[in-house]
């Protein structure tokens, strides 16, 4: 059984595996970086550490004017950093092998796979792509 956390970005629903997530925080004060690229909102003081926050809708190229008050702090192997998203959904459990790999030509580069849950389409986010996109944003 895989536990997944679905969340809303723009008009679409994405998900991350629970194992990649350290904590969910809300309404924390985000301190802006002095001269950061737009995709990076700033950083939070999280358990005594400075943890950068990435605006996920913006990073994925959605037209994002929203505030994104919900932060998903990723597990330590990623950074750590937090992804800001619009809205969170309750956890769901999926059987192993819930993702079919065959339709890979159609999906976006940041999607690891697409699956259906209660007649809704959910895309599993590819964190490797997200990391690479952040790197590009930081360096340019």
């Amino acid at each position, binding site marked *: 059984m895989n536990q997944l956390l679905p969340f809303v970005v723009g008009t679409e629903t994405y998900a991350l595996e629970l194992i990649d997530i350290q904590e969910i925080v809300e309404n924390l*004060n985000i*301190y*802006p*970086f*002095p*001269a*950061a*690229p737009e995709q*990076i909102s700033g*950083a*939070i*003081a999280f358990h*005594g*550490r*400075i943890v*950068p926050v990435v605006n996920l809708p913006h990073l994925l190229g959605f037209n994002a004017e929203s505030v994104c008050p919900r932060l998903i702090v990723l597990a330590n192997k990623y*950074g*750590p*950093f937090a992804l800001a998203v619009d809205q969170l959904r309750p956890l769901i459990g999926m059987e192993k092998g819930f993702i079919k790999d065959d339709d890979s030509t159609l999906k976006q580069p940041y999607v690891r796979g697409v699956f259906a849950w209660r007649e809704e389409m959910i895309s599993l986010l590819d964190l490797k792509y997200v*990391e690479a996109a*952040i*790197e590009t944003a*930081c*360096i340019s």
Partner: protein
Amino acid sequence: MDKAKYRAMFLAEAAEHLQAMSEILLRLDNDPENRQEIDALFREAHSIKGMAATMEYQETARLAHRLEDDLDLCRKRGHISADEIDQMLAGVDLLEALLEDIKEDRPERNVDSYLQATGLSEQREVELQSSKTEVGGGLCSTNDPQPILVQIQLADTVPVPAPRLLVLLKRMGDFGTVLNSWPTQEQILTDKVNGRLLVQLRSHQPAEQIHAQLATYSEVEEISFPEHVASSNQDRSVLKGASVRVSTERLDHLINLTGELITTRYQLQNALKKRQWRDLDDGVGQLSQLVKNLHHQVLQVRMVSLQALFSRLSRTVHDLARTSGKKIELQTQGADIEIDRAIVEELVDPLTHMIRNAVDHGLKARESGTIRLKAWRDRDQVLVQVTDDGAGIDPEAIRQLARQRGLLTSSQVKALRDYDLYQLICQPGFSTSQAVTDISGRGVGMDVVKTTIEGIGGLVLIDSNLGEGTSITLKLPLSLAIIRVLLIESDGARMAIPIPRVIQAIEVSPTEIHSSGKQLMVYFQDAFIPLLSLRKMLNQPKKPQGGSISLVVSEVMGRRVGLVVDRLVGQQEVFVQRLSPPFDQIPGCHGGTILGDGQGIFLLDLQSLLERRKKAV
């Protein structure tokens, strides 16, 4: 015997003995008949020999044994000659190289050539005379030749460099054994290349021959044999190490503090159980004192004195004096000043370079001179200064060169004060030396010095008087983790600037602002400095006019500037957290910190902020 278990201990102790040996040798250079020093030197060599023999490091033991024998002769004779000191120093160098071999788990290099080339015993004196020419070069060459570095730069016109580099890398294999290459073969195959290839090669062929054969390839633009990398790595090895040696006194302090913390915990638990608020209050007060103390002590563990670095530099001066044939006196002061280990490591290359500069340029036309190496503490900064009593920097020569190189216009050159002019020598590629010698070319390295020092949050100040000498001062933070910062505010956001980067924080009235074209200037100390608006640099909205103007005077890219901020908030000591990659690449930000009230703030990096703006324009 379980060798691996004792190896680290052996390496650490042997390194200490070697450092002691080179320190004594340098002292003996000025006082060659000091029997006590010769005796001490003998004992150090004897200790190394004994340790190496126990550990069954044969070559190390053989070499140490030879040094011990030679010193025994000196001891009986009661003095040591300058040549002997040089030979001993070369022996110490070779021992260091052997320790490096042991550390890297390589077989020890052969020491035969040293044993054959040198020898102080009277019987071998004739031999010594005839083989003297070999002493310099021959010392390092063992049966296996020393690896060399070969760097190849392809012409810009080569459209796809990867296949060419692959061919060249293969060709290198014909000259001898390729030990390392940057980029590696795999990287070349995946096309991660930029037309430059650096190869570490063990070859029996002389460099000229390799050069000649490589030069036959038409795409090759430049072939060089850099030597710097290997030697500077060796320099560092003395200071660097994965483990830290902590004095037992400091450890005892830490243990005592932990003991007190445990006691306080019981007090607090007790007070809580009995609901005695007064005791609870006392306990918390005590706890915060202890935590503060503990924090201080833990930081102390990272602090090391400048002693090892200074003795390294004494050795550099000694070697330079020998190669240049000048009589150079080195005066050191403040070697006991303590500073964060990581900072000391960063200081090795810059200071070596500054000393070379002082000898090569400052004392250029002189037979003798004095170099002063001084360190002192000023509140929470450490200052390290290299002063020579040589020729000084000629401001006119710099003015002329700055015009020629197109760095400044004629009017700018005239307006620039001498002090600001000197900072120009830190610009990449700026050299006033007509002939760049093998020791150094001023300007080739000063930009590297500046980049390194500013990278650790410090500042380079250059001062010179023509005919009297040059003095270069490094202003450094005590620790990389805890630093003092100036808090400022811009458009409601608080930010911090490390204190070593701040020359002065001042308030000026609008009437003191002058304008030249679009550029606003203010008179500070004895010159006009340009004003930069932080809001503009951060793309924040303009501040409504009114009242006095807060300025932070700092130095960016060698020039003094006045940074206009909304408000100067105050000074504070903060614990800096580096951002994890790739966030550390964001320009303008050195790292972050969390203030006592839980607020997160960032450390401004003016240099990278300005560079980015320049690029954007």
